């Protein structure tokens, strides 16, 4: 009889321990969510800072070096050649046009924390009628796609929150 009661008590404790474990896991997960939200705020500030810099650049290398309005689309950088034009454009500070960001991957430590974020840039021509579609021919509209994710502290588990942002830049000229 006593052993039956003991077994029942042990079983009840196992159930209780399982419930408690789940309870504490839930508490921890909520804390992680709040921390992730702060990370996403930092990721947003990083991505918008880069986008702001990109938007301050010329539309294309050819429009950076000329004050005349460009009418001939074939003068633009070839779709497969989007990226820095030469070795001197080796950092964001030295970029002179929007598509120099193509293929770039940079890491940045967020101010006020030790969290490090990596950003990857892709620039492509897009169809002006369908901005979401990258095309393999020249148009007067380019899109920059950014992906920002945290690399330090390392992500626990399998899910990595990645912030994806895109901005479209069209060519225009004031006469």
């Amino acid at each position, binding site marked *: *009889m*006593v052993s039956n*009661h*003991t077994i029942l*008590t042990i079983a009840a*404790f196992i159930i*209780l321990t399982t419930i*408690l474990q789940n*309870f*504490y896991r839930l*508490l921890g997960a*909520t*804390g992680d969510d*709040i921390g992730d*939200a*702060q990370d996403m*705020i*930092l990721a947003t*500030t990083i991505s*918008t*800072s880069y986008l*702001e*810099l990109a*938007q*301050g*650049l*010329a*539309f294309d290398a050819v*429009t*950076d070096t000329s004050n005349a309005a460009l009418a001939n689309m074939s003068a633009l950088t070839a779709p497969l050649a989007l990226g820095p034009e030469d070795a001197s454009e080796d950092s964001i*500070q030295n970029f002179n046009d929007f598509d120099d960001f193509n293929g770039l991957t940079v890491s940045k430590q*967020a*101010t*006020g*924390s030790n969290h490090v974020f990596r950003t990857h840039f892709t620039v492509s021509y897009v169809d002006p009628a369908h901005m979401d579609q990258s095309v393999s021919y020249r148009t007067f509209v380019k899109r920059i796609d950014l992906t920002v994710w945290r690399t330090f502290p390392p992500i626990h588990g399998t899910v990595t929150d990645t912030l994806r942002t895109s901005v479209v830049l069209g*060519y*225009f*000229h*004031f006469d």
Partner: protein
Amino acid sequence: MSTIIDLVGSIIFGGALLLIVINANEMASENQSVYNGDMLVQEMLVQTAHLVEGEFRNMGVGIPEGTRTILAADTSDVTFLYDADRNGVVDTVRYVAGLRSEMTSSPNALDRPLYRRLNHESLQTVGVVTVFRLKYLRRSGEEIAPPVALADLSEIFSIEITMEVQNPFTVLRSAGTQAGQREELYSSSLWQQTRLASQNFRR
């Protein structure tokens, strides 16, 4: 005898169970208040940042080419031009962080008001921050030391805005710590962004 052992055992296990549940309950409520504080701070920061960045990104809009966009630039005080209501008339906007002494009602000693002034209107409080720091950069990325001299104002290519908001109420205060002492722990959230001093520089 076995009944007595059962009773004693039940009392011990029941007591342990009660302690565990009370402890879990206490921890849940403590965490709930911390998480709520964190969330509140993030919401406050995003709201303030939304307003500030909305205006900073329009800096220079409607300003004739060759006209200086920034009129005055200091560590936590900036005055710039843009056509705020798109009526063709250039407006002067000033953002300035007030003094900590102006927020004596806040339990957080680092809290200071963030003011906005449009043209000649009086200063309006648009948020409460603990840090509102502006860094001015040339096109080369070199920093221009504040307060920026009049001759260097047109050299400002981008502005780095750093803003921190803290919860007015402490998360953790050790025994004996008085309100406002910095041994307290506050929830905080940080925003740092680089903005161009003027759009449409180059096309």
